[in-house]
């Protein structure tokens, strides 16, 4: 029992159940399984970014540009299709663009040794600025055959396609982060970067790697949001980084790096989805939700920090 409670997922699961029960008590929509499944499509893009953010924060970095990368890829993808590029090529180009954007972040952080929060704050403006410069305030309509991913379900099991995509990436991400040497090295870098370098780990390469992962997942998310909303706009996913980072740290990934689990982060994101859905059903506007998210972010990190310092003290005295 104690071992189960010590897992990093324990607290997020507990919080998720509590929130869910509370929400269900207020609103019976939460007992409608079909409705819940449909709702997951709204949060699929965010979930993909949570997967990426877990890699980044575990390695002691942060990526504030995820929402902006997603928007830039979404716009570029829409534009490419509008220009008549065949679908498979456009998808490849979008993924490639995501990788390039991520590697810009990665190179600035890893090779120029600039703090990631500043680099990605800058590229957040740069990437969204590029999206805005490209499309201005117009929106590009997507071809009809690409629209409506959120309404598609997988045959037989009726799983919405976006949720299915998230599950696939979660599985891959979970395996990579928790069961491979690559993941282990990221935890090492997050725990003590200098010691990781002394142990012969190619720290710069790993850092570029996680930012590229982030860019590619943002690209997938960008195409998904295009399909779901049927248009590409520069303000897609604006402020999405906030709920993504909040979920990741609420899920037990230590903001200082070196600790956490992908499962915990995704469960915490489900919790945030429940909160946002409940607030939405209660007609709370987007700005109230912003306040709630901001508070959650500070609380998640603050409580974690207080707990860490207390267990740390206990370990020393024991």
């Amino acid at each position, binding site marked *: 029992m104690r071992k189960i409670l010590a897992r990093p997922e324990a607290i997020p699961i507990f919080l998720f159940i509590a929130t869910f029960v509370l929400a269900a008590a207020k609103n019976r929509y939460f007992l409608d399984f079909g409705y819940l499944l449909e709702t997951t499509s709204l949060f699929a893009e965010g979930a993909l970014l949570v997967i990426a953010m877990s890699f980044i924060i575990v390695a002691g970095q942060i990526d504030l540009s995820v929402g902006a990368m997603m928007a830039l890829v979404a716009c570029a993808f829409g534009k490419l299709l509008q220009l008549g590029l065949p679908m498979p090529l456009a998808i490849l180009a979008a993924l490639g663009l995501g990788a390039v954007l991520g590697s810009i972040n990665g190179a600035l952080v890893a090779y120029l040794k600039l*703090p990631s929060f*500043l680099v990605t704050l800058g590229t957040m403006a740069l990437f969204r600025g590029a999206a805005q*410069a490209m499309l201005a305030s117009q929106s590009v309509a997507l071809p009809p055959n690409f629209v409506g991913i959120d309404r598609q379900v997988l045959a037989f099991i009726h799983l919405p396609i976006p949720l299915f995509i998230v599950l696939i990436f979660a599985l891959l991400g979970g395996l990579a982060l928790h069961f491979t040497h690559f993941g282990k090295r990221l935890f090492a870098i997050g725990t003590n970067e200098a010691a990781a370098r002394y142990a012969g780990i190619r720290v710069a390469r790993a850092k570029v790697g996680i930012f590229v992962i982030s860019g590619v997942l943002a690209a997938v998310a960008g195409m998904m949001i295009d399909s779901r909303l049927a248009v590409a706009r520069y303000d897609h996913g604006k402020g999405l980084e906030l709920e993504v980072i909040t979920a990741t740290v609420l899920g037990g990934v230590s*903001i200082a790096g070196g600790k956490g689990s992908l499962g915990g982060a995704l469960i915490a994101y489900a919790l945030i989805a429940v909160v946002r859905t409940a607030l939405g059903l209660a007609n709370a506007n987007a700005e109230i939700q912003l306040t709630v998210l*901001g508070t959650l972010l500070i609380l998640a990190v603050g409580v974690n920090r207080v707990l860490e310092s207390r267990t740390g003290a206990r370990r020393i005295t024991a």
Partner: protein
Amino acid sequence: MLRKPEFRTFLLVVAVFVIATLRAHRMIEPTAINSLLLWIPLLVVMSVGQMFVIATRGIDVSVGSAVGFAAMCTGLLIKSHPGINLWIATATAVCIGTGIGVINGSLVAALKIPPIIVTLGAMSIFRGLSFVVGGSTQITSNDLPSSIVRVAQEGPIHFGDVTVSWLLTLSMLIALVAFLLSKYTVWGRNVFAIGSNPEGAHLRGVPVVQTVFGVYVLCGMCAGISAMMYINRYGFVNPASAGQGMELTVIAAAVIGGTDVRGGRGSVLGVLLGAVLLGVLNVALSVLGIDADWQLLVYGAVIIGSLVLNRSERK
């Protein structure tokens, strides 16, 4: 000389100004100059506060929302009490900004939560709270006594049609105070000692926690002053747009002015020049007929560009 970031920024200001003037003569007409001089004050005050934060290796991305929230609250106060003394209104804005700074400072300095997390959270919280207090209302010039807006339009000095407004005068005074604070006070020097070597400063008995706390309070206070300046200048407050995205402009001004993002270095003069540069860029873009849609891209490029160029070799 060229190694001084202040001098480099100055050269950039001149270069942008000259190029823009060559392309469009409207750049040196009074309308453009006046709009430049109106654009600078808010940015100077906010960037100066940000400089102290960055000098301690921190960041404050909540300043835009702090301006929005403080402006909204103050605007509502003026709307409900039309005859209110302007100084009381100003004091309200400053107090609200300072309060936000106190919250940020406590979380960063005492709880040791990374500044980007604290201020990212505060940024959303206070943007949301602007709506909570404002609801669907917005403050327009009809709600404000004309004396408020006059502060931005009139001033002590005139060169032909160019006016140095009270607002600009005030911002320069604040910059001067910040300069004195950074060079000639124990607190200011402690800020730079901490940025240069946090652990060393602690061992030498510098009150690190209190000083870092103070830096965020100062930054919040500057945001509060800017909130009042925002009302003066625009005569209009909308809970969604007031101060929205301003943190990027402010951070861009601070880093292009040579503030070392790894701490320990920064100058008020540099930040002042950084703000002027962004102002000139902004006016130049509009004079050259480049769409407002390019603005964000330019800020992003400026931030990344100065991060790359100003990074110090030693740390």
